[in-house]
């Protein structure tokens, strides 16, 4: 490649070199035609005094030198001359080689136009050395850049490895640092980070479940214990023992319900149910659930309204979706006073569905809107109404399994719980 470039550059330079001589010869022949031999001699004399110009020679047909320094050989055409054979070359330097074009003019006189070969060689050397520098610089920069890039790449891979190691060691919140570079490696890092976030979420859920159970189930268990101990202390009073046992059984049944709900949430969160997903119409499911709740709502002096686009296609588990909607309605009906209006609304949206249950009851404090989907969350005002505090948590778990995002907002007045198909592009 380099050799080819050298050869073509050399060819180019030599061709240029010759072309210049030919052009000059042509120009001088025109001068001869217009101004005659004397005119040409004068022109040559003038040119010869300019530094850096070509070298010339003009001889009469009898070989008498009329102008210039070059001495013509016998034949015309391209030739090579030794510079000024009469003059001694300066010490230590070789005689210059001159490439010359010898032309016989119409009147028999001879015109010689030449140039020192050295100049072509110098030009070639100049190009060559520039060429060398360029190649050298390219190689050096290439190596340095490659080294830098690969170190950069290795550093990023190393960052991934370190993050993975930290996570393995238990630092679950650790993520791979992202660089501003947007390439495949960044995409990989982002994917890993999403994976790590998912793992962290699952682990935290597990951690919370034990903590929550410890906190929230201790109270009813302690109360059962108290009742039974009280009954034992009562001694022979059979009636008191019987009523204590009955109360204890009721408490334990409630506890079992809570355990059932917790296990159901855990199973839903584990995602095992996904295998049973089928295309469903969420509108149809919502209609059935609303219809089931309507008489009970009316009896309590509450209104349950339904507003639906139909159908609302979704892939899912019918039982779970029914339970999800039932829990949302349950929640709205139970925490709101008589006269409340609860509306279940379903809409089709680009790329999915939106389902909301809104009431015009007392609502939830705006600071608490974010946490109502959490396990065992109960609004202060709701502590007196029955319930495990797991209803909306199960809603969130089922929604998540179905790719729906939960949000709670102020319905002004009241609470609105909305489920929206999550953006699948993320």
């Amino acid at each position, binding site marked *: 490649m380099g050799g080819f470039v050298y050869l073509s550059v050399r060819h180019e330079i030599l061709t240029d070199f010759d072309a210049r001589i030919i052009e000059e010869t042509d120009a001088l022949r025109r001068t001869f035609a217009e101004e005659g031999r004397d005119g040409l001699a004068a022109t040559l004399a003038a040119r010869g005094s300019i530094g850096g110009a070509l070298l010339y020679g003009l001889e009469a047909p009898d070989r008498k030198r009329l102008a210039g320094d070059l001495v013509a050989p016998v034949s015309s055409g391209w030739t090579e001359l030794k510079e000024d054979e009469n003059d001694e070359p300066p010490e230590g330097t070789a005689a210059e080689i001159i490439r010359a074009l010898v032309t016989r003019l119409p009147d028999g006189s001879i015109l010689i136009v030449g140039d020192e070969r050295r100049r072509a060689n110098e030009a070639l050397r100049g190009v060559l050395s520039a060429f060398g520098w360029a190649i050298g610089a390219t190689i050096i920069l290439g190596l340095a850049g490659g080294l830098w890039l690969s170190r950069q790449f290795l550093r990023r891979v190393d960052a991934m490895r370190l993050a993975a190691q930290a996570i393995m060691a238990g630092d679950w919140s650790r993520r791979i640092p992202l660089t501003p570079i947007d390439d495949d490696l960044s995409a990989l890092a982002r994917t890993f980070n999403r994976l790590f976030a998912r793992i962290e979420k699952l682990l935290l859920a597990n951690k919370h479940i034990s903590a929550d159970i410890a906190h929230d189930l201790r109270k009813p268990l302690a109360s059962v214990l108290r009742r039974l101990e009280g009954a034992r202390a009562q001694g022979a009073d059979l009636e008191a023992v019987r009523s204590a046992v009955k109360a204890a059984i009721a408490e334990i049944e409630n506890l079992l319900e809570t*355990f059932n709900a917790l296990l159901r949430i855990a*199973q839903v969160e584990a995602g095992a149910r996904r295998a*049973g997903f089928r295309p469903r119409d969420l509108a149809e499911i919502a209609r059935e659930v609303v219809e089931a709740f309507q008489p009970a709502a009316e009896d309590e002096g509450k209104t349950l309204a339904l507003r639906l686009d139909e159908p609302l296609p979704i892939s899912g588990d019918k039982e779970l979706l029914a339970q999800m909607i039932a829990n949302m309605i349950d929640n709205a009906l139970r925490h709101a006073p008589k006269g409340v209006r609860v509306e279940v609304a379903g809409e089709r949206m680009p790329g999915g569905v939106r389902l909301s249950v809104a009431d015009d009851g007392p609502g939830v404090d705006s600071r608490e809107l974010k946490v109502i989907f959490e396990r065992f969350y109960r609004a202060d005002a709701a502590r007196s109404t029955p319930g495990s505090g797991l209803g909306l948590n199960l809603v969130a778990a089922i929604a998540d399994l179905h790719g729906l995002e939960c949000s709670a907002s102020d319905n002004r007045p009241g609470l609105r719980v909305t489920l929206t198909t999550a953006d699948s592009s993320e």
Partner: protein
Amino acid sequence: MKTLIIEDDEEVAAFVAAGLRERGHEAAIVANGRDGVQRASAEQFDAIILDRMLPEFDGLTVVALLRAEGVATPVLFLTNLSGIDDRVDGLEAGGDDYLVKPFAFEELMARLIALARRPMLGGASPTVLSAGDLEMDLVARTVRRGGEEIDLQPREFRLLEFLLRNEERLVTRKMLLEHVWEFLFDPQTNIVETHISRLRTKIDRGRAASLIHTIRGAGYLLRVLNPGL
């Protein structure tokens, strides 16, 4: 009623057997799947209570083997809390009903009796159900009491149909939720109670004798109290 209990948890098996005997029924216990299949194919039982997790053959295999042998005895599955898909698997394998542990004995009893008296598969199903002077035409979807037509909502119709099919038997809230609404959960809102109360108002209005009776703490019962009236 003669029941076979296939259950490896001795405590549960003894508890169920004692409860059945106390109510005048026969109960036999086997502790693993292999013995269960043998016993169930050798003897005639009215119902089988089958645990899901068993040594030798598990519950699903037991049902599949029995059904393959042509034993049509109704099977009630008992299961632990794990696995909400179990229900579907159990019913698909050939079970007839499903109950999750822990359970109230009344719930088990109600389901068992409903199962044991279920007409055998393949028999011509009736198109008219009746109890006393109440008549339900399943084809025309009409209900009459004493010849007078009663207008029911579709869900009320299904509710009454289920009660009629289980005449004289206790049906629990959970059974109604499962069969009438297909809800496998128990909502906090009293949807069963309000539907029953509406249905009762419609079919008992202006009558001396009530048909639907509430069994406190257990469920409901459709019974003609005074057939001679």
